[in-house]
């Protein structure tokens, strides 16, 4: 449940940044940060696609898998947790790379990007703990969905 909630928040954030990047929103709400500098840099596009869109796809995938994992038929299986560990692990690596770019290449900080990096790290840590807990206790929950 924690993972699904975090994934939903991350998804909303990624959608916001993506919509801004493709021009559907006016000024970016960033306070004193340098979101525009980061979002307008050449590093805000990866393989021709806005970086934020990868976030949309990634968070959506994690949200779907984590919700599936709560369903009775998947609850006793470990696969959903492992898939979330894998997806969020990729997300953490990508976020670490983007944070490095902000710090040393662009030399500007986008606070929403940092929040997103924090969220994906929390998802990864939570899923990792869940995967170890499930393995060691073999606990079983049943769910009324």
């Amino acid at each position, binding site marked *: 449940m924690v993972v699904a909630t975090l994934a*939903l928040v991350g998804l909303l954030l990624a959608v*916001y940044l993506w919509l*801004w990047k493709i021009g*559907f929103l006016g000024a970016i709400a960033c306070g004193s940060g*340098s979101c525009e500098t980061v979002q307008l840099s050449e590093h805000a596009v990866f393989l021709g696609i806005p970086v934020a869109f990868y976030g949309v796809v990634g968070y959506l995938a994690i949200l779907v898998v984590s919700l599936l994992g*709560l369903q009775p038929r998947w609850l006793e299986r470990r696969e959903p947790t492992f898939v979330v560990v894998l997806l969020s692990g990729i997300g953490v690596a990508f976020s670490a790379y983007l944070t490095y770019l902000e710090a040393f290449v662009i030399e500007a900080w986008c606070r929403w990007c940092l929040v997103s990096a924090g969220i994906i790290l929390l998802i990864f840590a939570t899923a990792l703990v869940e995967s170890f807990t499930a393995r060691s206790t073999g606990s079983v929950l049943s*769910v*009324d*969905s």
Partner: protein
Amino acid sequence: MAQSVNLKPFYAVLGVIAVAGGAWIISAGGGSSTITLPEMVTASAFPGYAIGSDSAPVEVIEYADFQCPACAMFAILTAPDVKSRLVNSGRIRWVFRDYPLPIHDRAPIAHLAAACAGEQGQFWAMHDQLFYNQGAWVQDRRPRRLFADYAQAIGIDAQGFDQCMDEQRHLDRIAATRNEGQQIGIGSTPSFIIGDQLVAGSISIDQFIQLVERAEQAATRQ
């Protein structure tokens, strides 16, 4: 023994987060408010770059920044429709006013390039060049070289253009126009004054037409 967990409250919480987040994103996309234009703006020393008939019943004033992605999005996706459906048919007169945002380091020189092209009657051609090529000059270390290329592409006198750029002839006027915009409540770009409505954000052609229709009705009542 298996524990039974009811997921319905959890789904409700997710739903609330989704709705609240969606509302926040939509509200961040701008909005509209009714304004009354101060005398000093309606009687501005520089009224802006206009296209369309002087006798059009509705005047639309756009405040935009050439370095703003949302402005480029509007210029590329929506403005052609606005011109063909509203300006060319005589329903609106469209006025462009400079609003270079302080966070955009290259906006002042881009607005200067447009103003210098405007000296030779080619403001709108340079306006299109700047928005359609925004991705290129924003990332170029010496955007002025590209502006000179755009000037050549639209067939304006290079010497006159360079001289105007060297003298930074219109920078003070651009800053003054921006300050006027700030005084009437422009806070982001693009922003549009359509009749007595101030609308922020890259609005769609359908929203644009609806606002123009409201302004037309208001003009008819007066």
